[in-house]
């Protein structure tokens, strides 16, 4: 009856490298974490199916447009007439500028169109309409 011997076999998971693994994960999260720069406005984004990801975050500038037509760029509330100068400055500093538009889904197209016109005048032509994934 040598079978009983098997029970004595010890199995322990080596934990010596645990801190290394944890540090690796830690460094990954530290590098990938981007602390949120702007608060923005509270908007309900529209939803769409065929959405694309923005490759870079570096050239992206966010614009919030709320239901009532308030515009927020860099946490500053702006009037429609000021958009042009602000966007022009941004465009001058970064020719590859992409404007990420975070507008509420109930916004009237009139406001959006006016905004388009201001962007065109500021020569900031690359627009990305921020949307949610459609369920």
């Amino acid at each position: 009856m040598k079978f009983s011997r098997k029970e004595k076999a010890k199995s322990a998971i080596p934990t010596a490298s645990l801190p290394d693994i944890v540090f690796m994960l830690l460094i990954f999260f530290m590098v990938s974490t981007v602390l949120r720069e702007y608060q923005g406005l509270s908007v309900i984004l529209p939803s769409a199916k065929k959405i694309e990801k923005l490759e870079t975050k570096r050239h992206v500038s966010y614009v919030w447009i709320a239901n009532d037509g308030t515009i927020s760029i860099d946490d500053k509330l702006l009037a429609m007439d000021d958009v042009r100068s602000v966007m022009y400055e941004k465009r001058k500093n970064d020719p590859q500028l992409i404007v990420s538009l975070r507008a509420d889904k109930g916004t009237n197209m009139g406001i959006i169109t006016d905004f388009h016109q201001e962007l065109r005048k500021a020569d900031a032509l690359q627009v990305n309409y921020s949307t949610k994934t459609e369920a």
Partner: protein
Amino acid sequence: MLRKKERDREAEIPQGSLADIAFLLLIFFLVTTTIDMDKGLSLVLPAEGQQTEVAKKNISNLLVNAQGQILLDEKPIKLRDVEPVIKQKLQANPKLIISVKTDRRTEYQRYIDVLDELKQANATRVSVAEPE
């Protein structure tokens, strides 16, 4: 004589709790990380003052009114029919430009829906027209 003894004393930092500290930091970063993806529909606006003459046969007008009804080349169309119809038109004429025109009171969501349909039909030449 006293000094020699002092040198022999070994000073060690306890490393037993190192993993705990690392875990704590890890959890902090896990919680604060927001991988908020920038997703959406991309569009390039036409440049200001740049008006190019386009042959009429190369343009398709897509109008969306305040009630969200869609008119494609003077014919009313349902939202879900936009994609197959545009696809057909693009097959017939790959140079086709779709000009989207909206009313000032059209909902933004409706505009995005239409744009989404056009993207699904792989229409790359989309232009946004000013409402009158």
